[in-house]
């Protein structure tokens, strides 16, 4: 299977990168910082420890995704690997999927490591009902993978740095979409409302993945909403990579 081989090669080359090792060290520093919160009485009383841990893991997972994405795309350009789909039997779709999943597997691996650390920590500290917190970490992994897919999609018609910058900007915009929808519903014209609704449904909507308020305060989450949130990134990633491959296969070589 060429996709599997490509995935493996991408993941291994990323693991050998020095910057990846630096990110792993950074992750453990962040978690040590979160543990320092234990020394404050108020930190334990008002879930500051869980909050700091979740937020730092969210930040790190996205940082991982962006840096891995940038690294893979930079290597594509530097070693002219993008000629592979044109010079071999490998299709553009398999090429893009292999490169994407190589980076995504490392992000998922990091997410699983965070889940393991959290389980040990929360069990040791006797923090109750932390399964929702785990769900939030899983959603952060999904969000990071979607952000990575957006960067890969943009790289099919933009240069590497622009794809990264626009990808991060789309992540920031995607987080404010639910707020924007509520704001326009109350204060703006119907035309603007319609425009924002189009943005809400068509742009990658990262606000779906943010259930930290419910998770930290142990509030219930509707099952229908949960099923949607877990299905959404899968469909969106497949669609983005499919369209990206279609654009990529029509692109003249070397651009």
């Amino acid at each position, binding site marked *: 299977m060429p996709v599997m081989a490509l995935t493996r090669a991408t993941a291994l080359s990323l693991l050998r990168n020095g910057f990846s090792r630096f990110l792993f060290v950074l992750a453990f520093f962040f978690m040590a910082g979160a543990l320092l919160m234990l020394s404050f009485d*108020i930190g334990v009383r*008002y*879930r*500051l420890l869980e*909050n*700091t841990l*979740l*937020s730092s893991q*969210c*930040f790190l997972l996205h940082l991982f995704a962006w840096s891995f994405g940038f690294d893979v795309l930079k290597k594509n350009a530097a070693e002219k690997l993008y000629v592979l789909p044109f010079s071999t039997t490998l299709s553009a779709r398999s090429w893009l999927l292999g490169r994407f999943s190589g980076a995504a597997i490392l992000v998922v691996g990091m997410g699983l490591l965070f889940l393991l650390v959290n389980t040990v920590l929360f069990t040791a500290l006797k923090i109750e009902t932390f399964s929702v917190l785990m769900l939030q970490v899983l959603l*952060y992994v999904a*969000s990071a993978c979607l952000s990575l897919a957006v960067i890969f999609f943009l790289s099919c018609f933009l240069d590497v740095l622009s794809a990264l910058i626009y990808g991060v900007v789309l*992540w*920031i915009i995607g*987080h*404010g979409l*639910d*707020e*924007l*929808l*509520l*704001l326009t*519903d*109350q204060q703006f014209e119907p035309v603007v409302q319609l425009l924002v609704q189009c943005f*809400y*449904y*068509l742009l990658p*909507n*990262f606000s*779906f*993945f*943010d259930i*930290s*308020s*419910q998770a*930290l*305060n142990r*509030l219930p989450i*509707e099952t*229908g*909403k949960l099923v*949607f*949130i877990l299905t*959404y990134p899968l*469909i969106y990633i497949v*669609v983005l990579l499919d369209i990206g491959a279609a654009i990529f296969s029509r692109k003249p070589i070397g651009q």
Partner: protein
Amino acid sequence: MAGLPRKRTWREFLSQASHLLYAVLIISFFVYFAPSPLENSTGPVAPVDYVPHERPLSGAFHTLLADRYWLLSARRLEQHPEHGSAAAKQNFFKEIKHILTLDPGFTPGLHYGATYLASIYRDVDLSHALVDVVLDYYPDWADLIIFKITQEISYRYPPRPALIDRWLKALDDLSYPTPVKLNDALVYAREQQAAWQQKDLRWLLDNARTQAEKQIIQKRLHDLESDHPNR
């Protein structure tokens, strides 16, 4: 024939049409199933001017920012423990409102802020406004509507029957068993208001964030107990 557009075969046409069908199906999936914050927004809640500038730019870190505000607001009150003035009341309300906007599920903050506003600053309307901030995000949260009814009965004399009636209807719409009849609510307000206020103040005292707050609450409790020694 080179250079002329080639006539498409039926197979190619169908393949392109199926792509279109996929696109329509996927977009309908998103539009139909995507959870929208506008659902149920025409419920019992009045629109609240709630979006502070931090929220859309905070990425996924609303809750962490809310915790920071919570710590800062407690520290600010420790350093400037003035109270009783209209400005201090508005400041306190705004701080808690921003915290709840950033983290609407922060129930300890909501209960503390709403009870503090009603007990110490004697402003039930602002207390209701705080609950409305959270209800805007979770319109189906029946406990909060019951909390508003309790606040109205405990702190306003006479309580406004029209408001209580509206909230009871909202609970009915949510298929929630009605906790109290309207007439009973008015009787409770007359007979048990002072006792409930004292109970709330004792709860506030147990949960006070700083020494300054503790002193203010103690003074208020002392005043109330001297007014109603039998309670």
